């Protein structure tokens, strides 16, 4: 019942460090990020978010696989993401509705980065948030190049 008093473990920090979004963070910065992330578990087939839904969080795949597809077209996926990938990143930048549906392909554990928490970090931890923004920008750049050059999206993750 008092699980919220449980402190962060070292292995959790190592898992975070392995994620592309937090690759450049120091141990202290990882602890701060660890404090604001939420962990959720999804069953195979469970919808994570819907197309058109108001998005406010970025999701990071810790274990499992996630399919990104248009609503009503699950057989034509836009991308399939494995451990270490992240999606829903634009929710950190604006409040546009989700442009696609995300669904767990198998039992998955996702770390959730709430947009308002990231904005709070921008104010109080500018160095940390700049590092995250840099990784985010690189990811968006790769995605943009992929769209322009017409290559498959997962090759750029």
């Amino acid at each position, binding site marked *: 019942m008092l699980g919220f008093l449980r402190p962060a473990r070292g292995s959790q920090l190592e898992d975070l460090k392995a994620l592309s979004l937090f690759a450049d963070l120091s141990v*202290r910065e990882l602890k701060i990020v660890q404090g604001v992330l939420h962990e959720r578990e999804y069953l195979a087939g*469970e*919808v994570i978010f819907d197309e058109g839904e108001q*998005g*406010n969080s970025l999701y990071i795949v810790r274990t499992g696989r996630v399919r990104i597809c248009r609503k009503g077209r699950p057989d034509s996926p836009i991308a399939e993401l494995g451990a270490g990938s992240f999606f829903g990143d634009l929710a950190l930048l604006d409040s*546009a*509705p989700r442009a696609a549906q995300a669904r767990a392909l198998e039992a998955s554990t996702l770390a959730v980065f709430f947009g308002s928490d990231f904005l709070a970090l921008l104010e*109080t931890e500018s160095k940390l948030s700049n590092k995250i923004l840099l990784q985010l920008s690189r990811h968006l750049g790769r995605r943009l190049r992929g769209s322009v050059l017409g290559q498959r*999206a997962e090759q750029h993750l």
Partner: protein
Amino acid sequence: MTDAGDTRSVEPAANRPGPVAWAGIFAATCLLLVALNHILWLVIPALMALVLSYMLEPPMRRLMYAGVGREGASAIVTSVFLVLLMAATLALLTWAGARAEDWQAGVERYLRGGAALLERTLAALEARWPAFARANLAASVTTWLSEYSNTFLERQVQPLAVSILAWLPAALLGPFFAFFFLRDGRRFHGFIARAVPNAYFEKTLALLHEMHQTGRSYFTGLVKLTVVDTLALGIGLWALGLPGAWLLALIAAVFAWVPYVGSIAGCLLVVLVAATDFPHDPAIAYWAIMLFILVRLLDDFVFMPATIGKNLRLHPLVSVLMLFVGGAVAGVPGLALVLPLLGVTMVVGAALSEILTDGRLWARHAYARRLRAAQDAADLA
């Protein structure tokens, strides 16, 4: 590839609650006021702790930014605050104790001064308008005031003093609660979020954030408003030549935390001082009343919308109506609590209204439950 293609910056959909939701919001606010009125011994320290945690959070974050852990940072800021509070309390008690007898004589002097101003004002009114003289206005008011003041001590002051003494130990819980709010608030936030099903998770995070922002905006706005009111009243009272203008302005600004009743009490205090210190110049007291009316108008139309009202987003009619309801339901505590409570119940009501009317969320949750049931029964067939 995620959220690709649509790069428009779209404003969030206007999910304003409908009339049924508003009815629920008002009912919930009234019920909460009634309930909280019975546990004021807990509400007061909890509110103090909340305000303290909002004020101490920025220095705590500075310490965390410098590398201090959350536990250490919260302990440091709370300890420093407690030390400063104890020092200030000790200094105040020493100073006040040395002047206790002067104060008692001073209170009686100011009350006599106020009574004299009232008599002069009523006599002037009777002289100017004979209708008041025929109605014996001065005699009636003086008699009523005399009867009221004779029993004022037993009916108002003694119960108030007993309540304050009863609440004092609970008020000491404020810093204690504030420490834990600062240290464990984030973890408790995550604890609540973990209890929510996946389908409602993002909406719950948004709701918790909105609630936190509403409370923080209200109380930090209240502090800013107090500073602005103190400045406005202080400048005016200093210009009028009242002794202790800035102290009076500060006291009146703090009294104004209780809507309307507090402002009137503050004005009364200043009028008593003006009437006593300028017995031959009643115009000073009248100018002080005009000053309070002017600051009240500035509060309602300029200062409050720029501080508190900006984030509560309350319609002025709703604010006034709920103040009357709060006063009727829970007296003075109701007046003080109704607006922040309404702000929070509004946020919760809007979120609940959105969740309960979103069939897709219900469907996703039901589907997830079926998946879990199928998983749990996988090897039972």
